C-alpha cells in the first residue's frame, strides 16, 4: 500500500513548482497556469486526506468539488482580464501592466 506521506510530499512539491511559476513568470497567462498547478496540489491533498483518515465521511471530496468550481470561476475571470488588457495595451507581460502604479 502507498503511505499517506507520498501523496503529501508530491503535493507539496507540486505546490512549490506552481508557486515558482506564479512568482517568476512574466507572462500573465503563465502566472494563471502556475495558480492551476497550486490548486491541483491542494485537490490531491484534500482527496488523500479523505481516503486516509475516514473514507465514510465524504467532506474531503466535497471540498475538492468546490475547489473545482472556484478554479473554473477564477480562470474564466483571469483570462477575460488578460484578454481585455491585451486588447487595450497590446501586452501580456505582468510588469508592463502598471496603470495603477504611481
Amino acid at each position, binding site marked *: 500500500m502507498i503511505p499517506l506521506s507520498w*501523496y503529501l510530499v508530491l503535493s507539496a512539491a507540486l505546490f512549490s513548482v506552481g508557486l515558482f511559476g506564479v512568482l517568476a513568470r512574466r507572462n500573465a497567462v503563465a502566472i494563471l497556469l502556475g495558480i*492551476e498547478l497550486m490548486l491541483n496540489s491542494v485537490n490531491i491533498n484534500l482527496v488523500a486526506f479523505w481516503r486516509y483518515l475516514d473514507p465514510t465521511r465524504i467532506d474531503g471530496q466535497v471540498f475538492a468539488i468546490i475547489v*473545482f468550481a472556484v478554479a473554473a470561476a477564477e480562470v474564466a475571470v483571469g483570462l477575460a*482580464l488578460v*484578454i481585455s488588457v491585451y486588447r487595450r495595451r497590446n501586452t501580456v507581460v505582468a510588469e508592463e501592466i502598471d496603470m495603477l502604479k504611481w
Partner: protein
Amino acid sequence: MTALQIIFLITAGVILASAVMVVTTRNMIHAALWLIVTLFGAAVLFALLDAGFIAVVQVVVYIGAIAILFIFAVMLTRREMRDRGAQLNSEWWLSAVVAALTFGGLFFLLSGWSGFSAHAPGLSSGTDTVQLLGAALVSPDAYVLPFEVASVLLLAALVGAVYVAFQKKGEE
C-alpha cells in the same frame, strides 16, 4: 514494492516533470499542453485514491474546459514575447528560493506530524462513495448551501468574464 506503488511513482514523476515544463517552457501553447499532462497525472492519482468521480470530473472540467480555455487565451494573446525577451523576471532566483523554502517548510512540518506515514483504512464493500458524495451535496444537514453558493459564484464569474472580455462598439 507493489504494483500500486510503482504506478504511483511513475505518475508522480510524470506530474512533477510536466509541472516543471509548464513553468519553464518558452512557448505558451506547449506550456498549456504540459498542463494537460499534469492534470491527467492528477486524475490518475484520484483514481488510485478510490475517488473515481473526482477523477472523471478532473478530466471533464479541468482538461475539457479549463485547459482548452488556456489554449484559447494563448492563441488570442499570441505574437507577444514568443521568441524574444526573457520568460522569467529578473528576480527569478528569489522565487526559486521562496519555492524551495516552501517545500522545505512543508516537508519539515509534515514529517513531525504523527499521521505522516498512515496507511489507508480499507473501504468496506458496501460503501458507494459516489452515492455518499451525491447525498452530501444536496442534504440540508451537509453541504447544500455551499453547493448552491458555488453555483451562484460560477454564474457570476462567467457573466463577469463575458462583460470584461466583451468588445464594446466604438472601441478599436
